[in-house]
């Protein structure tokens, strides 16, 4: 029993260690190279000091005994023989250090040491975060992996730990038969801390970028005066004058020049390039437009049957209205914009459509009133790094597009996106939205939404997510609620969008909105939202299959139209399923993730190979190699039946074999496989990178490094990728003490090619 207690004591640091490890995992990316790094000597000579054998010596012996016991008692590895314990001096001392300080030694010197320990812990959090042992200093010293953790976690759960211990060891030494449960090894009292940190995809922590004038608590800006622009339902002519009068910048935000040009010019993608949309010319399309458009309204089931027809017609501009005839609601738009609002929203929309309620009267609570939450420029992290490491002069050479250097419209925005200057693109969306009256601080003020404003929001939020600025995206998404406010539907603006129906919010924005919470450790919220979208998709599909229109109205769709719509909504459904599966995978709910990926095959049969292979990789990740192989075989069978038409299918089984070798610790054969892929496809970035990784595990650092380095310099377009650069910088760190210079060379390579959205953290310079 005595032994058991001692042993328990001895294990306390272990428990603490777990805490510590988790803390560091959750912490933000630590500085990788700290020049003032401290290490603590554990060299034996250093400990031969007069104080050494004073008060601690007795407990020391105890602890040594504990160690001996522990090695015997606890279940051990099958091959380990139970040898005699060989106590070694250095270990003795080291154990002593680990022991949390005894309360009776309260002299000042000791307190100073404590402080120092804390300093150490603050100064070098590398141990847990860098795979590379950080040990820059020469000489004999040790990097304290755990001492600092003890100091970091002062409120340790010591009282509990010994108890579990006791029972464990009691059983081990001489198990009492009447005990029901025999805890063979109960070492830790496991806390809750094991769960959390799962969802950061790459270990990089986003930083919140916010306006200096921005405070979190003050999200709802009280709205005292309703500016003229924001009158909810102006007449068309009024709207134009207002917007031009109030927005001096409206010259570059010209949503409403004419309805047709609004569709075709300002958002070129909204125009249907290939599909069977009616011609844009108002003269030709007017009659068909009117025809298709009036039928649904008249027969719309949502509209209470008591509603007199003339009233309905009055809502919408009649055929002779010049504006109305000019407006074309193409089938494409209808298909794309279809959405099923919630019951409340639908009621509001109906009452607006039947002119029971003027939009002015609608409670502001029910409206989406977005505004920028931060308006500072996003900057360019690459340039900042260059300034820091290469000097101002080098930084001056860095040429990237900024929000100022492009056209202040959608074309400029697209240019910024395609050149990977997403930060500048975020800036530009901010400007364009400000011009639209949804700028900084406008959140909470009534506003008019247009197709373009919502597209701008979508682009802005999508880019924020791409930049891993999740908190910012969440803040700016917040005023949109569930994307179901009545003013986010075309029906809310009968004068501006006469006859147009459905959601202004692009479908992709709904998916983005659903995906966002998982990056903020709220995966359940993501799943909830995705399921909501999924059920709408399914409802729309079933409407279509029953011969109704997307929204369930009795509208005659042409066969082509219906098929096209079914195809669109099936692809949307599969997109949502992908999001779900991805989210489940990040939650490590592998079972459901695999099931969901499986069910996507039905919707995307052409992605069968990739999906099965992906499921195989999930099993490899879990460690279930047998099942993984089964999936890989399925893929091969599928390929063979297809007659190996495509090169990429040919080498997929080689890649699969490589992965299986890898999980059998057979890096040599894995390397051979990846290399053989390269013979067929020398530019294959995955095979190149993976072959280099295998080389490292084979102890061939220089070769591995050489391979990756030459790739990066030969074909920067493919290899200036964060995963490759991360591998490369890790190897630099392993190779020499001069890794910083080599990383700076990489920075220069990045600077000439990459836009401002480059994730500089993979260079590990800071």
């Amino acid at each position, binding site marked *: 029993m005595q032994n058991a207690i001692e042993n328990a004591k001895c294990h306390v640091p272990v428990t603490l260690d777990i805490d510590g490890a988790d803390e560091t995992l959750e912490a933000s990316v630590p500085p990788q190279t700290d020049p003032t790094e401290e290490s603590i000597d554990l060299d034996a000579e250093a400990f031969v000091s007069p*104080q050494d054998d004073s008060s601690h010596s007795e407990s020391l012996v105890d602890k040594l005994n504990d160690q001996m016991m522990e090695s015997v008692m606890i279940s051990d590895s099958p091959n380990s023989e139970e040898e005699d314990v060989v106590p070694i001096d250095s270990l003795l001392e080291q154990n002593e250090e680990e022991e949390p300080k005894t309360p009776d030694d309260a002299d000042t010197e000791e307190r100073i040491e404590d402080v120092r320990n804390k300093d150490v812990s603050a100064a070098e959090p590398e141990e847990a975060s860098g795979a590379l042992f950080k040990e820059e200093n020469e000489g004999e010293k040790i990097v304290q*992996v755990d001492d600092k953790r003890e100091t970091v976690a002062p409120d340790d759960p010591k009282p509990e730990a010994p108890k579990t211990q006791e029972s464990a060891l009691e059983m081990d030494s001489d198990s009492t038969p009447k005990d029901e449960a025999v805890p063979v*090894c109960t070492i830790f009292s496991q806390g809750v801390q094991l769960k959390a940190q799962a969802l950061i995809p790459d270990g990089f922590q986003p930083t919140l970028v916010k306006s200096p004038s921005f405070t979190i608590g003050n999200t709802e800006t009280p709205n005292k005066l309703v500016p003229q622009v924001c009158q909810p339902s102006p007449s068309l002519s009024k709207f134009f004058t207002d917007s031009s009068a109030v927005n001096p910048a409206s010259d570059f935000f010209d949503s409403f020049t004419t309805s047709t040009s609004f569709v075709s010019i300002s958002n070129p*993608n909204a125009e249907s390039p290939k599909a069977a949309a009616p011609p844009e010319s108002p003269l030709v399309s007017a009659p068909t437009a009117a025809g298709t458009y009036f039928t649904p309204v008249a027969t719309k089931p949502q509209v209470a049957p008591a509603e007199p027809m003339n009233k309905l017609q009055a809502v919408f501009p009649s055929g002779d209205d010049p504006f109305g005839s000019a407006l074309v609601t193409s089938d494409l738009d209808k298909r794309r914009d279809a959405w099923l609002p919630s019951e409340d929203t639908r009621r509001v929309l109906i009452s607006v459509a039947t002119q029971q309620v003027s939009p002015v009267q609608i409670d502001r609570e029910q409206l989406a009133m977005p505004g920028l939450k931060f308006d500072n420029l996003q900057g360019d992290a690459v340039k900042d790094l260059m300034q820091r490491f290469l000097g101002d002069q080098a930084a001056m050479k860095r040429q990237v597009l900024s929000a100022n250097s492009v056209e202040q419209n959608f074309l400029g925005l697209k240019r910024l996106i395609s050149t*990977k200057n997403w930060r500048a693109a975020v800036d530009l969306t901010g400007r364009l939205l400000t011009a639209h009256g949804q700028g900084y601080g406008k959140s909470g003020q009534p506003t008019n939404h247009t197709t373009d404003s919502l597209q701008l929001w979508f682009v802005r939020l999508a880019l924020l997510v791409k930049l891993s600025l999740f908190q910012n995206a969440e803040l700016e998404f917040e005023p949109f609620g569930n994307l179901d406010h009545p003013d986010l539907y075309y029906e809310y603006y009968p004068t501006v969008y006469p006859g147009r129906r459905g959601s202004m919010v692009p479908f992709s924005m709904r998916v983005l909105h659903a995906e966002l919470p998982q990056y903020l450790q709220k995966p359940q919220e993501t799943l909830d939202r995705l399921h909501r979208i999924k059920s709408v998709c399914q409802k729309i599909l079933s409407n279509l299959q029953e011969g109704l229109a997307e929204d369930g109205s009795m509208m005659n769709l042409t066969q082509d139209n219906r098929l096209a719509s079914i195809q669109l909504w099936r692809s949307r459904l599969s997109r949502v399923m992908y999001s779900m599966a991805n989210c489940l995978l990040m939650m490590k709910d592998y*079972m459901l993730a695999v099931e969901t990926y499986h069910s996507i095959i039905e919707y995307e049969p052409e992605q069968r190979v990739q999906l099965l292979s992906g499921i195989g990789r999930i099993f490899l990740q879990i*460690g279930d190699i047998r099942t993984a192989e089964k999936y890989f075989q399925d893929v091969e069978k599928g390929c063979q039946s297809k007659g190996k038409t495509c090169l990429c299918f040919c080498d997929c089984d080689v890649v699969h074999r490589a*992965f299986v070798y890898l999980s059998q610790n057979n890096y040599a054969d894995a390397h051979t496989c990846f290399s053989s892929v390269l013979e067929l496809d020398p530019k294959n970035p995955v095979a190149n990178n993976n072959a280099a990784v295998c080389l490292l595990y084979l102890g061939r650092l220089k070769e591995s490094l050489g391979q990756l380095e030459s790739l990066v310099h030969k074909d920067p377009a493919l290899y200036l990728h964060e995963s490759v650069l991360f591998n490369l910088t890790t190897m630099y*760190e392993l190779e020499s003490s001069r890794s910083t210079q080599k990383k700076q060379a990489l920075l220069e390579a990045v600077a000439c090619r990459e836009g401002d959205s480059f994730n500089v953290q993979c260079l590990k310079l800071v």
Partner: protein
Amino acid sequence: MQVKGQSSAADKMDVSQAKQEHLLALKVMRLTKPTLFTNMPVTCEDRDLPGDLFIRLMKDDPSTVKGAETLILGEMLTLPQNFGNIFLGETFSSYISVHNDSNQVVKDILVKADLQTSSQRLNLSASNSAVSELKPECCIDDVIHHEVKEIGTHILVCAVSYTTQTGEKLYFRKFFKFQVLKPLDVKTKFYNAETDEVFLEAQIQNITTSPMFMEKVSLEPSMMYNVTELNNVSAGIESESTFGRMSYLQPLDTRQYLYCLKPKPEFAEKAGVIKGVTVIGKLDIVWKTNLGERGRLQTSQLQRMAPGYGDVRLSLELIPDTVSLEEPFDITCKITNCSERTMDLVLEMCNTRSVHWCGVSGRQLGKLSPSASLSIPLKLLSSVQGLQSISGLRLTDTFLKRTYEYDDIAQVCVVCPYTSPES
């Protein structure tokens, strides 16, 4: 604590001096398995503002799966990003690189890697021979592996000795400390069957932070027992695991395994009864985690205290499960002398509310030597329907005048024979 403070102060001085001195640099990196890169798909439809820009960017991204860019799990391997945790039974692998940072050739380099545990010191270097020379910018590489067999603090001690061009012999050491944690929590429970079978229930809990694939969990019985695993439901040829298709354990999940142990006949016969503490065997557990990172553990020998039967054990060899009301039926009792002395036994049968014994009570059974047993057929009937407990047997050892009571020996179902056929 003071000791430590002093040493750290001394250490700082060492650093400043040592910085210029050494021509070689030693770097160590733990080689956990690489991970698969996951990307973050953000998509839009072709009629949205960005058009095909987003999808084009994703297609150009080398880390995405071509043809299925929305699948987040790619094929790109990334090197381990942190030291991570190491658990008992796993293999600790490390890359040790000694690099010549100087611009001169260094000679007779000897790199030694030892692992110091709480109980022993192991040499992990692949070779112990010196490298004759190392040119500038060249390095000596070694990958070490060690299966971790102890919990607690481990120190990797790397020692480098070399000779400079001037013939100066230099030497330095570096220590890398890490903690080995426990991956599993194993709890066991024994159930003794009325026969000599023993059922072992083992709860295995994953106390790591990552999912674990349980590749093998088996009970290696001691020489006295045969074992049957009860963790599969056989349906035809394919037997299905009781845990379903996914054989992995999420963090903090517990799984319950069941085994049936039967004493080998030679042991069961020889001993008569298995007495006291017996060794049942040990559990052998093999698991895998990320990309096949393997771990293996065995529990210590599981011990079980055989149920105490007192001096005399009375067990049933034969008993019907269902009997008719008020109709006599036969049972066979086995009486075993578990004590160290010879007994002279008298059997008494006492009726209870429902059970009525037939035959003579108080009959002499004669002498029974230690470990010997005898079988006695008995007749009884029940006057009450339903599930009835058989109670009321008394054995008295006339030598010591000690009486042993046997109640609730077994249960029988008593039915009424007249009503059942009609209904």
